[in-house]
C-alpha cells in the first residue's frame, strides 16, 4: 500500500473536519500526520482559516427589487399582447381569395378602382395591427439571450 501524498492527507483532514468522509481513512490520515511536520502545520493553518470563516455572518441587504422587476414584467406583457396571431392574416387571405373569385367572373366588369382593393385590404390589416411590413429588424440577438 503506497503512502498517501501530503496534499491528499491535508485535504482529507480538512474534509473530516467538515464532517465529510474522504477517500482516505482516519487511520491513514493520523499515521501520516504523526510523521509529517509540514502537513501538521498545513492542517493547523487550514483549521485556523475555517474557524475564522465560521465566525462570519452574511451581511443582510435591505433592497427592494420588485419595482424594477414588475416594470420589466409589464413591458414583456405589453409586447406579448401586441401579438395578434394568425387571425388578421387569415381574414386578409379570405378577402383576397374573394376578390380573385370576383375578378375572374367574366360577366362582371370590375373597373380599375376594384383592382386596387387588394392593396387597400393589406394596408388596412397592417394598419390595424400597427406593423410595417417593410420594416427590417436590425436587432440581432444571439441564441439564448
Amino acid at each position: 500500500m503506497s503512502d498517501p501524498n501530503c496534499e491528499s492527507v491535508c485535504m482529507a483532514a480538512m474534509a473530516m473536519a467538515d464532517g465529510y468522509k474522504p477517500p482516505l481513512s482516519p487511520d491513514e490520515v493520523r499515521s501520516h500526520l504523526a510523521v509529517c511536520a509540514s502537513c501538521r502545520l498545513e492542517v493547523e493553518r487550514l483549521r485556523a482559516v475555517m474557524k475564522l470563516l465560521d465566525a462570519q455572518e452574511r451581511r443582510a441587504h435591505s433592497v427592494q427589487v420588485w419595482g424594477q422587476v414588475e416594470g420589466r414584467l409589464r413591458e414583456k406583457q405589453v409586447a406579448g399582447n401586441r401579438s395578434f396571431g394568425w387571425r388578421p392574416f387569415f381574414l386578409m387571405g379570405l378577402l383576397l381569395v374573394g376578390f380573385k373569385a370576383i375578378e375572374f367572373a367574366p360577366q362582371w366588369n370590375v373597373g380599375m378602382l376594384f383592382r386596387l382593393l387588394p392593396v387597400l385590404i393589406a394596408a388596412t390589416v397592417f394598419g390595424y395591427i400597427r406593423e410595417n411590413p417593410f420594416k427590417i429588424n436590425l436587432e440581432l440577438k444571439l441564441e439564448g439571450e
Partner: protein
Amino acid sequence: MRGTMDDALAIRKCREGEGEAFRHLVEQYQSQAISHAVAILGNREDALDAVQEAFLDAYQALGRFDLARRFYPWFYTILRNRCYKLLATRGKREASGLDAAELLAATTCQRPEEVLSLEQALSELTPEERELITLKHLDGLSYGELSERLEIPEGTVMSRLYHARKRLHEKLTRRSTKSI
C-alpha cells in the same frame, strides 16, 4: 413550512396569470439573492442587475418548475448563471479598494477593520472560490448540498474547497505581513 406552502401557492397563481403573486417570491428571496450575487460578482451594483434579470428569467421558467421542489435552490441556479454571464460580458470590475464590507456583516466579536480585511482577501479569490467558501461557511451547506447546488461531484467540492481555503490563507498572511 408555511413559507414553502406560500411559495407553491404563489407559483400556482403566477401560472394562472396573476403576475402580482410573483411579488411574494421576489420579496421573500431578494435579500438572500443579492447576498449570493455579491459573493460571485464582488459588488452590489452588478449584483442588483443580476438579481433583477434572474427573477425575470425565473418568472419565464415558472411553467417548468416542479412544485415538489423548494424554490430557492432552483432559483439559485438561474441566479448563478446570470452572475457568470454578467462576469463574462462585463468582466471583473477593477478592484478599487473596499470602503465597507458588502459580503460580511460586522459582528460584536470582531473589529470592523478585521472584517474588511477578510473581505478584501476574499475579493482577491476567483468568483468560483468565493462562491464556494461563502456557501460553505456563511450558509453552512454540507458537501452534499454544495455538490447539488453547484452541480459538481462531492470529491470536486472537497478539492476546490481545500485549494480555495489555502489561497485565502495565503492572501490573509500576505496582508498581515504587509501591515507589520
